[in-house]
């Protein structure tokens, strides 16, 4: 076991911890924030869901990473991970959800460029295309789904709706974590060539991160949009299903982006519409900035390092 590997492993665990913290704020936060769930129960489900998702379906996005440039290791991998950590801390400081996937893919592309690996245009074009349209698909799909769900719910008593929401919450936390594991963690597993023992550690780190998501959950659940249990259920189901679709296309994408798109969809068809426009602009900006900053910072750090360390 080399020193580089140990550093890489520590950084990866830290990154996945933050990943759980950051993404937990979106999917688990909606539920716990609306009072349907507590964070401890949700965090256990997050860990199990991520583990199983990566194990069963992580190969799709994992193979995307390997097809594009193979396994990352050594100095380049360490710089890539360290930049993600810094970016995450920066975004946490300004209380915004960061798409770690987008910033990681941005940084990962820099690494490939610096290592002289030819980036295949086709898959990259497809990735950007889906990144841009996936929040809109999520928004439209969820808006329709939410409308239908509301209409259906009016045929049932408030007691049955509340009970169903609780059961749905339970299933959705698992479903969302599963898809998150399949897409995002699968990509990380592929990019860094990790084994299944490491996967267990990653799942634990993500669950621990999800436990600490309460502060950011509040920011999204209350600062961006006021949604009830049906709205949150529709947003989670809609956003996650879009991410699952992208997983089957073999494309790593951001759960934060698809779920926030879905929440906006819920907000659009809700009356009265209650949006915090300023916060919405900040979130959209963070989507764009995540990729650009990941790319630029890793490129800027690795270029002089490459000359010094000759890797």
């Amino acid at each position, binding site marked *: 076991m080399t020193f580089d590997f140990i550093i890489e492993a520590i950084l990866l665990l830290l990154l996945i911890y933050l990943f759980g913290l950051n993404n937990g704020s979106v999917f688990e936060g909606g539920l716990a924030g*609306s*009072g*349907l*769930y*507590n964070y401890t*129960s949700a965090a256990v489900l997050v860990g199990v869901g991520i583990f199983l998702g990566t194990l069963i379906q992580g190969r799709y996005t994992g193979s995307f990473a390997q097809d594009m440039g193979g396994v990352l290791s050594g100095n380049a991998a360490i710089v890539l991970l360290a930049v993600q950590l810094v970016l995450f801390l920066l975004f946490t400081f300004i209380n915004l959800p960061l798409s770690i996937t987008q910033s990681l893919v941005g940084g990962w592309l820099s690494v490939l460029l610096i290592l002289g690996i030819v980036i295949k245009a086709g898959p990259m074009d497809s990735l950007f295309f889906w990144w841009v349209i996936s929040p809109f698909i999520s928004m439209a799909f969820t808006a329709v789904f939410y409308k239908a769900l*509301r209409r259906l*719910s*009016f*045929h*049932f*008593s*408030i*007691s*049955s*709706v*509340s*009970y169903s929401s*609780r*059961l749905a919450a*339970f299933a959705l936390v698992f479903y969302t974590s599963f898809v998150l594991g399949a897409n995002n963690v699968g990509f990380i597993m592929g990019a860094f060539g990790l084994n299944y023992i490491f996967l267990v550690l990653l799942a634990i780190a993500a669950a621990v991160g999800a436990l600490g998501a309460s502060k950011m959950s509040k920011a999204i659940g209350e600062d961006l949009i006021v*949604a*009830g*249990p*049906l*709205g949150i259920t529709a947003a989670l189901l809609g956003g996650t299903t879009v991410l699952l679709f992208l997983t089957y296309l073999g494309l790593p994408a951001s759960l934060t982006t698809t779920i926030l798109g879905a929440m906006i969809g819920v907000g659009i068809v*809700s009356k009265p519409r209650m949006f915090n426009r300023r916060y919405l602009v900040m979130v959209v900006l963070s989507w764009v900035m995540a990729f650009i900053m990941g790319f630029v910072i890793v490129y800027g750090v690795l270029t002089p390092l490459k000359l010094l360390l000759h890797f």
Partner: protein
Amino acid sequence: MSFTSIFKKGEDKLLEQILQYYLTLESCYDELQVYLNEIKAGSGSDSTYKIISDLEKKADETHEKLAESIASGSFFSYIRDDFLQLLEKMDYVADYSKDAAKIFKEYNIESNSINYLFGKTLFLDFLDAINDTLKSFEDVLKSIKKSAPKELLVKIKNVESNEEKADYVKDKVLIAIHNNNKELPVLDVITLRDIVNILDNVADSAEDSSDIIIQLIAKGYK
């Protein structure tokens, strides 16, 4: 929330407890009616007054326990505040019933004035209208567990119309009391007016509670 509680339909249990609580509040008003009949017949008995007072006390204790269970539980947690508000409003049914009984018991109202109130005004109709309002709200609470919102809203509308009827009769009673002030001592006019207004608050509490049910529907289906 524990793992096993996720699969229990605790919502129904909570709604049943709220209904039982309301039935206690309602029985406080039923006992008030018994007490008023005694007053009409001559004088209200201490034992009936004690029943009203004990029921009001029991309702307060149940209110406290229910509020605690709603605040710390996980059912309907997204509309928890509204449920607490509902309990608060419902509680006034017993509070005002007891207040009305207390005035009859402790203030010296002349028998002429009592006879006038019961015999020459629509006071008994007013009491019936309040009773109808309370019963229609009971119907709402009984239905909330199994009825869809559309059906529930119809029942809520019923509470509103009964309360409006109570309001209408109340005005008639007040007018009758005021316009015959030559036959009644001024202090009795003031006291009877206070009693009527306090009793009107009983019906208002039921109506306000039904408004909170509308709020629950609006939030619960969002």
